[in-house]
């Protein structure tokens, strides 16, 4: 009886709080995924027509033929600068062009020469630059192997799961019959005249008439349900272009750990997917999302990293359509004992991970980033899609948000509350209720009657505000923004050519076609101070609901047969959110004449979104597991270039216990984007509402955040320059220590701070893994020194935040915490010099004005500090840069040194 009761309770609870999974497709419910996943490995119908090979200096092309239907594909292979190989596969002669993702690559990637090493009837061997790397193209069946020395780094189509659904005419319609007749006549005419053009191919085709007949027959049979029309729940997808999916498999020998492909509420190390659904990449507004499953969330970055002790590589699958990623591993099922047995007995089987990407439309355009180090992969990916935008310093401070601050008085009193309780903050946020009836770019005439007064009040305190601007536009003839978009024809169209209409916060809404450059330019112009009434230079922007969220659409998003110019929404879906943030960030830049850095938060994202601002992990909940998952979710984003990541502190849905809230502040204070946020229906939770003890704990940790701002800022400068993540998994810095490979309950900030947040209720201690043989780690609170390469048990109280500074590092901090980061601009630095066993240390300091693009004009200070032989010296590592600061170094704290008898100070020139 007890069991029954418990079970019933569990069902009941999950029914109330978990996501309604039925609203979202499984692979089986997505016809292309089901179709593709049903393919059996080892039966690849693709063959290389070696005679079609063309090699210019930097580009190799080859034709592939599908022996089942004779459709030809064109394979392009490029060697890109920086140890990247690009493989593109498209139909040789598609019925109509297939979508190739624009605006994600920062430029046409520069190439390097390729050369043929050898060639025979089985294939071709190419040399990839200087690093003794080769590509082996096998002809029958088609397969690519990338080798370094004797090691295979990566194989493509090794399992024969390449699939390319060619565009075709629909057979059950009249137009098809006519067209196909005409086409076949035309083909015959063409054959007569052009037989010289493709002699080989012709021969082959003709030599195999039986095969051809069979193919035709097979094709007839292959018209499956869901190819030309598909329904999900009450929504139907007209699919006028029919099936168009693409798919390819990759084998990663020697690899047991793969990471990336955010956004999923999943651990850092990706799991194998054979027993369930593949990881799905399809930007969706998931209400009350569930943890630990591969369902799609708000954003998608189709980048996977693979790592073992010898090498890190990456796969960037540049496709913006709905995508599913299958992962399998030959060691996944093995127990630790089994693995040991293999090791002892010298088992023949090397571990291997197989990955398979399936996208609904577009082409195959994949970048193989060959490392070999984690940082090489970051820089390779950055060379393709750019780096993290360098945010204004203030945006690294604390953000206070809630749905909603009710009116100007509410904003004023919350602002005053922070002063009264002496807690610093930089930004206060306004959610959708601030607008006049969810018309973005407007203000509620009663609650926010004088926005400029409000903004001025914040500016007087050197603080800022963020107001939400969502991409759904209320259909209302009295709304300027709507009228302009409609009259300019800027709305996304429905399949019948009218303006697409969906249901969102304002009721019936249109969706601007952000894929259009002219639309984005217009949108950006709306942020000009004279257009966006009530805006001032300390007002920044938040783009929510940009998946896009359509309350009455299939899977709460836009219909796939909606139309963006010559493309379907199907082709561009995952890119929509990136464009929204791009246009908004441009708007903020333009309003200041290109002087000021923008700050824009987005919920939806894609590869390249790092260039436009910050992201957060969407509508989480006030639960301990949601606090835990914030770590791997942001780590995964960091690995694929998006460093400016955070989760709603406190949890969006539901109401946190004071303990959970405090622990979340302690965790959030050490994550890149630090914002508290709460749902409209939750009780207020400003830090002072939980009694003096909790207030003191929260105040203390927010202040800790502010002391580290110089370090955060320097790390973001580094991320902007190199693409290295700010918040990092341990394995990135300790790539040869397998103990770090799956760690995701702790993380590094840069190289030098290790954080193990307390994420369990009632916790009395945590066990942190301190990596690095021959390293020291210093507790930042007590300065206690611990040895590396150990699991350290740390007893904790409510005030504990286990954070360690790496021996060998120098971290600049500002200990004079003030009301906001801007108030601290001219304050002096304290250098924390933590010595390693060799009694040396190194660190950097970066200073600029904190808010303009003048750093691009070399207006900054960048210095390196080194401590060795008891001398701390400072070197200018940007001698061509100039900047003047009023700040100075007021204090140097050396950890791990004994008390000196004498200290001398020497300035340059003496």
């Amino acid at each position: 009886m007890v069991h029954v009761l418990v079970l019933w309770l569990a069902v009941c609870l999950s029914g109330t709080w978990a996501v309604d999974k039925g609203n979202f497709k499984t692979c089986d419910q997505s016809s292309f995924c089901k179709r593709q996943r049903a393919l059996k490995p080892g039966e690849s119908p693709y063959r290389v027509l070696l005679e079609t090979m063309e090699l210019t200096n930097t580009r190799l092309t080859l034709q592939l033929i599908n022996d089942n239907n004779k459709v030809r594909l064109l394979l392009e292979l490029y060697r890109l600068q920086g140890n990247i190989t690009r493989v593109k596969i498209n139909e040789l002669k598609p019925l109509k062009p297939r979508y190739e993702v624009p605006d994600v690559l920062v430029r046409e990637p520069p190439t390097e020469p390729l050369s043929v090493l050898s060639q025979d009837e089985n294939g071709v061997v190419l040399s990839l630059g200087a690093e003794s790397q080769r590509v082996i193209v096998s002809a029958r069946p088609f397969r690519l192997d990338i080798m370094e020395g004797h090691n295979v780094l990566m194989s493509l189509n090794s399992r024969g799961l390449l699939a390319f659904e060619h565009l075709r005419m629909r057979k059950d319609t009249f137009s098809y019959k006519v067209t196909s007749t005409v086409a076949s006549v035309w083909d015959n005419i063409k054959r007569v005249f052009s037989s010289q053009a493709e002699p080989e191919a012709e021969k082959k085709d003709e030599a195999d008439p039986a095969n051809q007949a069979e193919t035709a027959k097979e094709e007839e049979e292959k018209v499956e349900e869901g190819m030309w029309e598909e329904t999900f729940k009450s929504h139907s997808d007209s699919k006028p272009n029919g099936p168009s999916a693409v798919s390819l498999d990759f084998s990663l020998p020697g690899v047991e750990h793969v990471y990336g492909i955010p956004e999923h509420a999943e651990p850092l190390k990706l799991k194998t997917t054979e027993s369930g659904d593949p990881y799905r990449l399809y930007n969706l507004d998931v209400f009350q999302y569930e943890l630990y499953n591969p369902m799609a969330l708000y954003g998608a970055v189709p980048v996977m990293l693979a790592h073992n002790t010898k090498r890190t590589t990456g796969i960037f699958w540049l496709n913006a359509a709905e995508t599913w990623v299958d992962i399998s591993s030959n060691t996944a099922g093995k127990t630790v004992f089994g693995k040991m047995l293999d090791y002892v007995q010298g088992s023949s089987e090397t571990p291997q991970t197989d990955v398979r990407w399936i996208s609904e439309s577009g082409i195959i355009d994949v970048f193989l980033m060959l490392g070999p180090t984690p940082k090489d992969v970051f820089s390779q990916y950055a060379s393709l899609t750019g780096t993290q935008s360098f945010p204004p310093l203030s945006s690294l401070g604390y953000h206070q948000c809630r749905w909603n601050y009710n009116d100007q008085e509410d904003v004023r009193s919350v602002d005053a509350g922070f002063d009264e309780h002496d807690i610093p903050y930089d930004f206060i946020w306004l959610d959708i209720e601030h607008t006049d009836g969810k018309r973005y770019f407007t203000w509620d005439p009663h609650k926010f009657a004088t926005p400029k007064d409000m903004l001025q009040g914040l500016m007087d305190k050197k603080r800022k505000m963020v107001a939400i601007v969502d991409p759904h536009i209320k259909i209302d003839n009295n709304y300027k923004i709507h009228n302009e978009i409609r009259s300019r024809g800027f709305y996304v169209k429905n399949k019948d050519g009218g303006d697409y209409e969906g249901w969102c916060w304002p009721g019936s809404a249109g969706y601007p076609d952000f894929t259009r450059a002219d639309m984005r330019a217009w949108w950006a112009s709306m942020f000009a101070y004279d257009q966006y009434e009530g805006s001032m230079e300390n007002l920044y922007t938040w783009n929510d609901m940009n998946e896009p969220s359509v309350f009455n659409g299939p899977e709460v998003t836009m219909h796939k047969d909606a139309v963006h110019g010559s493309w379907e929404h199907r082709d561009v879906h995952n890119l929509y959110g990136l464009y929204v943030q791009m246009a908004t960030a441009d708007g903020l830049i333009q309003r200041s004449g290109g002087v000021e850095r923008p700050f824009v938060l987005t919920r939806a994202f894609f590869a390249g979104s790092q260039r436009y601002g910050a992201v957060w992990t969407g509508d989480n909940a006030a639960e301990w597991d949601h606090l835990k998952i914030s770590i791997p979710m942001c780590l995964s984003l960091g690995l694929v270039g998006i460093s400016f990541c955070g989760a709603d502190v406190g949890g969006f849905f539901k109401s946190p216990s004071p303990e959970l809230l405090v622990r979340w502040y302690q965790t959030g204070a050490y994550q890149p984007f630090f914002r508290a946020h709460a749902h409209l229906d939750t009780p207020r939770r400003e830090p002072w509402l939980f009694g003096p003890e909790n207030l003191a704990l929260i105040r203390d940790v927010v202040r800790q955040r502010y002391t580290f701002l110089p370090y955060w800022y320097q790390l973001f400068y580094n991320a902007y320059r190199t693409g290295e993540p700010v918040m990092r998994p341990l394995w990135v810095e300790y790539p040869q220590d397998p103990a770090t490979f799956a760690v995701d309950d702790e993380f590094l900030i840069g190289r030098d701070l290790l954080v193990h947040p307390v994420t369990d209720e009632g916790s009395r201690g945590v066990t942190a893994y301190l990596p690095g043989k021959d390293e020291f780690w210093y507790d930042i609170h007590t300065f206690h020194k611990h040895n590396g390469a150990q699991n350290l048990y740390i007893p904790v109280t409510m005030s504990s935040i286990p954070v360690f500074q790496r021996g060998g590092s120098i971290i600049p901090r500002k200990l004079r915490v003030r009301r906001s980061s801007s108030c601290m601009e001219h304050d002096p630095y304290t250098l924390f010099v933590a010595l390693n066993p060799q009694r040396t240390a190194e660190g950097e300091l970066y200073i600029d004005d904190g808010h303009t693009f003048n750093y691009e004009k070399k207006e900054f200070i960048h210095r390196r500090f080194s401590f060795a032989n008891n001398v701390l010296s400072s070197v200018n590592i940007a001698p061509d840069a100039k900047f003047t600061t009023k700040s100075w170094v007021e204090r140097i704290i050396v950890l791990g040194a004994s008390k000196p008898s004498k200290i001398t100070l020497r300035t340059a020139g003496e």
Partner: protein
Amino acid sequence: MSGQYLVLLFLFGGVFSVEVQRPRGVPLSKRPLYEEDKPFTCLDGSRTIPFDRVNDDYCDCQDGSDEPGTAACPHGSFHCTNAGFRPTFIPSSRVNDGICDCCDATDEYNSGADCQNTCRDLWRKEKESMEKLAEIAKEGFLLKQQLIQEANRGLEEKKSKLTDVQNSKKDLEEKVEALRMVKETAEQPEKEAKDRHLKAWEEQKAVIRMEKDKARMAEVFLELDGDGDGFVSVAELLSHSELDQNSDGSFTEAEAQELLGGVDKLDTAGFESIWSKIKEKYMSGSNTDAPAPVEPPQEEVKEPASDNDSEPYPDDDNPEEEEEEEDEEDDDEMDDGDYKSPPPTETHEKKDDDEDGTMPPYDEETQKLIDAAQKARDEFDEAEKSLREVDDNIRNLEKEISFDFGPSVEFAYLYSQCYELTTGEYVYRLCPFNRVSQKPKYGGSETNLGSWGKWAGPEDNIYSVMKYEHGTGCWQGPNRSTTVKLTCGTETVVTSTSEPSRCEYLMEFTSPAVCQEPPPMSQEPPPMTSDHGHDEL
């Protein structure tokens, strides 16, 4: 500058200005602790440093006492003299942060912030508003005195009324008791007479029934005795398959014989002995007009026929009715159950009539007794009702008298009043000590924002906040509740409402009842220039 990192800047050597001789940021009271030319001991005694390290923009003391005038210490504080206004302390972190905090602008001496001395302005404004407030407080306090008087008068009235009512209650109680006696005395003979009458009628009914049964038995015998030989035989019985004993659908000879008690045939006397076994199942052969039901257990027999008449109701109600008679005394003030059907006793009796003829009317004697008893009952009920009303009255009075209307009963006048505020969308209604509600201006139903909970002000001022709780529930949220903040005013008005957190409402409410006696107003700024005068040496 970019090369100068390791230079510690000492901004304030000799900056202890001509104007202020004590170190910057030190209140006059602590002046003696900062003696120039003597080593400085941190005020927590933790450390002693040369005096030139006081206010050198580097923090030496844990307690921040060596940097009263700079932002160097994380936990220090800065004293604003604020001549012309009120001196105050601000956290050291607000010194030179570019934001003007002290009205005398002394906190921003090196930040470039353009701060004006606003102390006199502030003082003027404060004085004005203090005066205004004092005026209100004064007036309000007078009103409050009246309210208190009225309330006390009202209280006295109520108390005396209570005493009156309590006395009248005693009389009433006695009356009720007396009437009860009368009633019971009258009911006893009534009951006996009725019982007699009923018993006689029952006996008569039994006789009638028996005769009917006999007649029917004879009728059946004749029907069964098809050959008219004066015997009912097995064969004759077999034509009536409804008599099948084991209901297996076939009525066999053996069964028929068994029914006849093992013999082949029975005469009338013998038939009488088995009549009870067959009479219930037996159906008339011709079966046209036979009103089969014979026996008292009519319910069972009737059931198949009575599919949609009101049969079930009396059944259901009967037990309830009995209870009701016992409970009647208690359940009156609540709106009496429309869920209860009128006493169905009579229906019941009528039904009896249908079956067995009409009970004859009571004889005159009995009827008289009944009438007398009914009168006694009515009088008793009437008296009892009055008693209940008096009880209600007492309860209400006691409740009101015992209500916490503040230390001087000054809030009593709010009792049973309501105050409204109309906003853009809603009409808010505060009925103090009762409930708060919200009604859409343009139609729609009222929402309960909470019922009277308690006084909820801070310990030293508990009567400054009212809390109304357990209002209508919110989707995925708590029940609505309202906090009412009371401030001194000459009028009793709801001045604002808001919903700071979902379903948690805040109301501002002015009332003279919260006005305190204003202290005598000083005409001069409280601190005045003492700081100025002395220490500018």
